[in-house]
């Protein structure tokens, strides 16, 4: 059991470049003690902005620290959505597919849900137009709030490390 993997190995993990056996060995083994921090620092290196990443939130999305007590959800491209405990989808560009025609643009015939029962909502980043999330719900259903991270508990009680904060400007 490695206490930690070489940084290159974690980079390959983030980039999905490990072969299956390596990946499976990692999953079956005890978790390396510094995995989270290494992944966080690899991700930090990949983005063009300086706000420290607190946690990866979803594909392309991060919770970052704008100041010591202001945590926001931010896209890879730099677009800032909202406070970390709010639903970023409310600020996203949304495309709704709720007609036969719109469904057929992406589904084979007879393979899609009935538009009166289910609509497809596609959420895009207003900054870079990346498709961030898709939900399939009944028409009229409220926006699903997937995840409200409990950052204090995670940092203080689970990994016992300080919550990242921007360096104080001199």
């Amino acid at each position, binding site marked *: *059991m490695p206490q930690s993997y070489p940084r290159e190995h974690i980079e390959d993990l983030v980039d999905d470049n490990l072969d*299956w056996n390596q990946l*499976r060995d990692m*999953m*079956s083994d*005890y*978790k390396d*003690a510094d995995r989270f921090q290494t992944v966080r620092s690899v991700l930090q290196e990949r983005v063009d902005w300086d706000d420290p990443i607190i946690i990866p939130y979803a594909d392309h999305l991060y919770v970052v620290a704008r100041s010591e007590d202001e945590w926001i959800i931010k896209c890879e491209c730099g677009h800032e959505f909202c406070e970390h405990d709010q639903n970023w989808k409310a600020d996203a560009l949304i495309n709704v597919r709720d007609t036969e025609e719109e469904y057929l643009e992406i589904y084979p015939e007879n393979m899609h849900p009935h538009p009166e029962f289910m609509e497809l909502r596609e959420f895009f980043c207003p900054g870079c137009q990346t498709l961030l999330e898709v939900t399939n719900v009944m028409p009229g259903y409220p926006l699903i709030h997937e995840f409200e991270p409990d950052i204090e508990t995670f940092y203080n009680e689970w990994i016992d490390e300080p919550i990242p904060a921007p360096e104080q400007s001199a």
Partner: protein
Amino acid sequence: MASSEQDPTDHSAEILSIDAGGTMTDTFLIDRDGKFTVGKAKTTPDDESRGFLNSSQDALEDWRLDVEDGFPDLVSTVYSGTAMLNRLVERESEVDVGILITGGMEDTLRMGRGRQSYTGFSYSDRLHVNTHRHPEPLIPRDQIRGVRERVDVKGNELVPIYESDVRESVDELLDRGVDHIAVMFLHAYQNAEHEQRARAIAEERIAERDADTTVMLSSEYYPTLKELPRLNTLAAEAFAAEPSRKQLTNVQEAVDQNGGDVGVRVMASHGGTVDIHANELARTLVSGPIGGMIGANYFGNELGYENLVCTDIGGTSFDMGIIIDNDWDINYNPEMARLLLSLPMVNMESVGAGTGSYVRVNPTFDKIELGPESAGDQVGVSAVETDVETVTVTDCHVALGWIDPENFLGGDMPIDRNVAEAEIREQVAEPLGMGVYEAAQGVVDILENKLRNDLESVVTGEGYAPSNFKCVSYGGGGPVHTAGYTSGLGFDEVLIPEWAAAFSAFGCGAADFEYRYDQTTNIDIDADVSRAEAASTAGEQLTEIWTRLEEKVRDEFTNSNVGREEIEFQYNILGQYQGQLNALDIESPVSRADSPETLEELLDTFEDAYRRQYSEEARSPELGHTVTQASVRGVHDVVKPEIPTETPVGPDPPESAYKQPRESYWDGEWLDTDILDLHALQPGNELTGPAVLEGAATTFVLPPGYETRLDEHRVHHLSQTD
């Protein structure tokens, strides 16, 4: 090399049992008196017979013999190699295999079955869905061709075979240069006509093109239900087993050239050995741990023990099996190399815990965990010549003073007790804030608790009471833990043969020369028809299948020049009440069931077995019966190893058996412990723990509160004193 005695004179090597592993070829040689010696040599994959000869020579040297002197005395030679299994595991073979399959089923191998995505995984990974993945199929998709045809589950032809499909497919496969064409059509076990027609056409094409390709039919090799295991097994036969035939022939030639007058046989999964010319070689793939079961059964037969629980601890695994009335259960769908196969295999449970299991502290929960990985034959960190870095269970034995560092494997493996203690301190004791010996004892306790739980679930989980069984313990690591893992389970007796380390090899030597054929059937014996009518319909049908299987068994024996009159046949069925799901494996008292009397006898046997397995109240003969499988076993008598019989001397061990006593750690305290030479004890000797009995390849640990008696067959009877 290790040998079971000091005086190497006057031996006649009777039984030779060889295990050619990936790196080393191990030899066990047993003489007329049950004395054994072991040999080792590097495996030579290009021509396995060289490794075989070197390893045999190494073993014979202990008895001051050459192969030319030793081989002529041999009466039984059983060979098992891992080359076949390696082809399966690595999915690499010297041969190319093409498949003809019912049209529409071409992706059978790729789709596999849910279970195949996690077979062979550790328990924690089986629960951890992210780790599941379908294994790579044996045969790539582009070597599989569909043929339009269809036979239904009752064997009726629904769609005739499209002969042009066969021709085209065969041509395409021949263009790719395949060495074997395996044909598997749906429900061919009920009606093999389409497969046979496909072979006829394929062979025509092969002849016309003057190709050197053979055709194999699923209905001839494995006429059993379930197309995935059937196809896996047929593919394994062509892909992994056939290429080994040449190697086995080389081994046979090596025996012949050195004056041996004995046919080399191979251990097969059904619990017997088969000739190297056997049609179905694939079943020799999965013979691994069953040698011990066969040995235990033979031993039970000879000494009058009918019900046995067999336990085998080696470096990597703990294998358990049950023998009732001197017979074992058969598992018809064993798993190997992450493939479900359709082969009869002696049923055993295996857990990944052995003396070589790694000991680690789980950093999340601060508790000791064992395995599932292990150092295997590399022993542990205290074996200074190996490169093991993680503490193993054996290291803990060394630290506790249970194993003599000077005498491990007869002194062949240098062991450093200081290294063991230092590594246990660093890797286990300190992270947990415990003392070294406390931690080492903890590790042993955890292992023994785990083994005890597993053993209990195998026995009581099947509905059996341990008090009806004798537990036999063997394997190199078995006797160290026997007292621990049997404590409190309430077995009738606990038996440890002195030759525990060589018990599996002994078992291979004790295996019958046996062929076995199975066929799935669908024969209903309705409750509302007269016995006479049932006998002339269902009984007739069963008899016909038995006769056909008998023929196949006879043909196999003909390959080895064994005549009909030298074969003892046994007839089995899987039977169930109509509409029920679970079938019982029944040894039939009759070889034919086409008369009302014989059919009645067969059904009575089923009723008895059902009563024994479930209860009188659960019997439901009013539902009628179904025979779901028919089997025929043919056994040809071969020479078996002798079980030693000596005259009891008395309860006190001879002075010469005592070695230098040593302090050992037992449950929190250091006690002066008698150390004895396991092989110098005399029949009738009785000992009380704490004591350590050291043998050539195993150590028998007798903790405080236990006593043991050596009987006239050199078997220890272990019991608790309080």
